[in-house]
């Protein structure tokens, strides 16, 4: 007997919720990025669980693509943070209000 899939799905839902709440609560841009990674990992866990549940390799292939997109996203996002730091030495989301209308 393996662990039923529902346990993994509940764990992924909780992980996604923690990540989403963290994204809303934290002000540090770097930590907000880490919360996005948490949410991506929750989705990956769901993909793998449904791959096992439906006996479909497609779910595991999708995780592969999510990993690639996450890596690219982190690279560009951190480059934007570094460029932002060059202009103003601040890493909180509230300091980026120059685009406010």
């Amino acid at each position, binding site marked *: 007997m*393996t662990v039923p899939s529902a346990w993994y799905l509940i*764990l992924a839902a909780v992980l996604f919720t*923690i990540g989403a709440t963290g994204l809303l609560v934290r002000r540090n841009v*770097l930590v907000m990025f880490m919360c996005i990674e948490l949410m991506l990992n929750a989705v990956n866990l769901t993909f793998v669980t449904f791959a096992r549940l439906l*006996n479909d390799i497609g779910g595991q292939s999708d995780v592969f693509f999510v990993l690639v997109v996450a890596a690219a996203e982190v*690279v560009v996002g951190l480059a934007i943070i570094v460029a932002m*730091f*060059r202009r103003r030495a601040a890493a909180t989301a509230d300091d980026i209000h120059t685009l406010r209308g």
Partner: protein
Amino acid sequence: MTAVFGTSLPAALLAAESGGHGGPAWAVYAVGAAMILTGALGVVLLRNPVHCALMLVITLFGVALEFIDESASFLAAVQIIVYAGAVVILFLFVIMFLGVDKPEAVRSEPTRLQRPLAVLLGIGALIEILVLSRVDHWASGTPSQSGVLNGSGTNVQKIGQSIFTGYLLPFEMTAALLLIAVVAAVVLSRRHHPVAGEMSAEQQQAALEESSK
């Protein structure tokens, strides 16, 4: 394992196929879940960004453990190599590079009621996900299958076959995406050095006014 002998042969085969003795699978699940939740709460609650990054590593290792528990061995290895090996190192590098490893001033709340509302929204989202997962048939359409998971062959073999046949175009597009990301990172983080003969914005404006006279 004794329970398996009481069931029919296909069920016993299926249990053996998916790697399943009773105890170890649950033990791995429990350890992985504990790591994931500890790390995730650490990322959200700790004030120092360096500590958050280290907590993120714990969560990523926990997810890799769950992947192993679900017989996704290739993805578990990739998870550790890509996330723990590359993404978190990048995070730590940027934190050290920018020197922002100072605790965040959590006391100053810029928007009133923002934190309670965020927590409320998170709990609402969790309840919504759980309720939606209990409601059957809210997805419609014919299920498609890109390949069997429990067939013969290793996990790596099957993922490779799936990616290089059915998902070939997306795979090629990820190559383009990674190239774009590399170029974007270089362009964004590059310091601007004016080349010889290049004018600044003010100089260009002055030259424009000069020529329009």
